[in-house]
């Protein structure tokens, strides 16, 4: 039954994802890509479970490695997206001066 619940969540999220993303303007597509990258680092949540569950040594190693890579994704993704986005500025003062 739990799998069915998960499938329900999957269906809704896919629809929601399409609605949300198709509203992002072309200007922001590069930050969108890196931002999506950061979100996909959510696997870190799964990795934590494996790295800390006190499993077999090899499994813990796998989990720890997964934590490393997922964290790179999360931290790197959000930081680089923030760097990019904070460059986008609206015009501060209106353009002055008319054609001579």
């Amino acid at each position: 039954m739990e799998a069915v619940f998960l499938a329900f969540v999957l269906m809704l999220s896919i629809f929601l994802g399409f609605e949300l993303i198709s509203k992002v303007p072309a200007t922001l597509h590069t930050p969108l890509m890196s931002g999506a990258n950061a979100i996909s680092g959510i696997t870190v949540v799964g990795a934590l479970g494996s790295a800390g569950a006190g499993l077999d040594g090899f499994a813990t190693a796998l989990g720890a490695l997964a934590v490393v890579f997922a964290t790179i994704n999360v931290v790197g993704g959000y930081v680089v997206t923030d760097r990019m986005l904070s460059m986008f500025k609206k015009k501060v003062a209106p353009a002055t001066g008319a054609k001579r």
Partner: protein
Amino acid sequence: MSLELINVWYIVAAALFIFGLKQLGSPATAVRGNLLSAVGMLIAIVVTLFSQGIMTYTWIMISMGVGAAIGWLAAQRVAMTSMPEMVALFNGSGGLASLLVGWAALYNVGNTSFTDITILLSILIGGVTFSGSIIAWAKLSEIMPSAAIVFGAQRIVNAAILVALIACGVLFCMDPAVDSPFLYAVIVLGLVFGVMVVIPIGGADMPVVISLLNSYSGLAACAAGFAIHNNILIVAGSLVGAAGIILTNIMCKAMNRSLGNVLFSGFGAIKTATKVEGEVKPITANDAFLILEAASSVTFVPGYGMAVAQAQHVVRELGELLERNGAEVSYAIHPVAGRMPGHMNVLLAEANVPYDQLVEMDDINPRINNIDVAVVIGANDVVNPAAREDENSPIYGMPIINVDHARTVFVLKRSMASGFSGVDNPLFFGENTRMLFGDAKQSISSVIAEFKR
């Protein structure tokens, strides 16, 4: 923390991801959106750390520290021009994480066979994403030859790998032991498959590949979510999956090619464009200055060459000089100018060009005949009139910015060489076209120097 409470927090985290993406809908709120999304991630991580299943924090803290340091450094150091490479690497890292999470999940007790299947999917998709992204990165940064690598039996080899993959997958699911040889086979074959599907694609198509792999990394996260019964992975994974698919689709549409064409065929192999010949009219920076000084409306059309030349800052400077001179200045952005969707926008934003001066292709084209000078900076394919007129051209049908309809066109590039598509450009021979040869940054600096004199 009880499992219920953790999941309530996951709902909050998911809502923050969603809000974050919603706010990415406008440049004015995008920074906040990214922050909200990051807060969501923080919440998800923190509540997971408090979950009862976690016994030892040593390894976790070490690995998170290492990962965070690498990610932070990479993000701080990367130049805006190398964004495509950076995204490719992050993608690969996400794929690898999914592979490892899936693998580790095999050690959990009480997996059902449905869970085993999702674990396998997570390993497989993660592996393909990882190795594919690494190849894409290598091609983009020209560590390996960026041309399509094609050999005779390619299709057969790929088909064989696929068959072997499926067979090993089925055999593994029938007896899912952590030391099953089929497990190792699936991991290795997945990695090999990722390499094989990306090498036959030309370097300039890498953005499409990266975007598709981005979508896969979302799917891998979804699969991992099913494997460990975790809602937040499913929600976040779907959002990423949707983002990747939509961006892939936008790029393909803007290039007037199908996804199948991008993935499976060498480019330009079928059609040959009508050869164009004619007289080219080169000008000097001084001539360009005189014309620009008299213009009352100027639009800049940047392309990949602007990124190569790192010319965005001088372009902005020239734009400001022209504005102070009384001209109306805009920047016309083609959806696939550069090597990544939104590439030019980020570069111009870096150079402090306000985003309300950027104009999309569909908005500039109807009024381009009223523009005095269109300055093409290192763009080529995206302004190639052959896409509009020459039915034999491989890029026929791709929508372009019709700079040839402006009163005067300046083209800034180093030579008569063709752009990424390898197609000749009749624009260069146009009646109203002037070629300003040389590195874009250099050329614009010279024009600026004339202005300041």
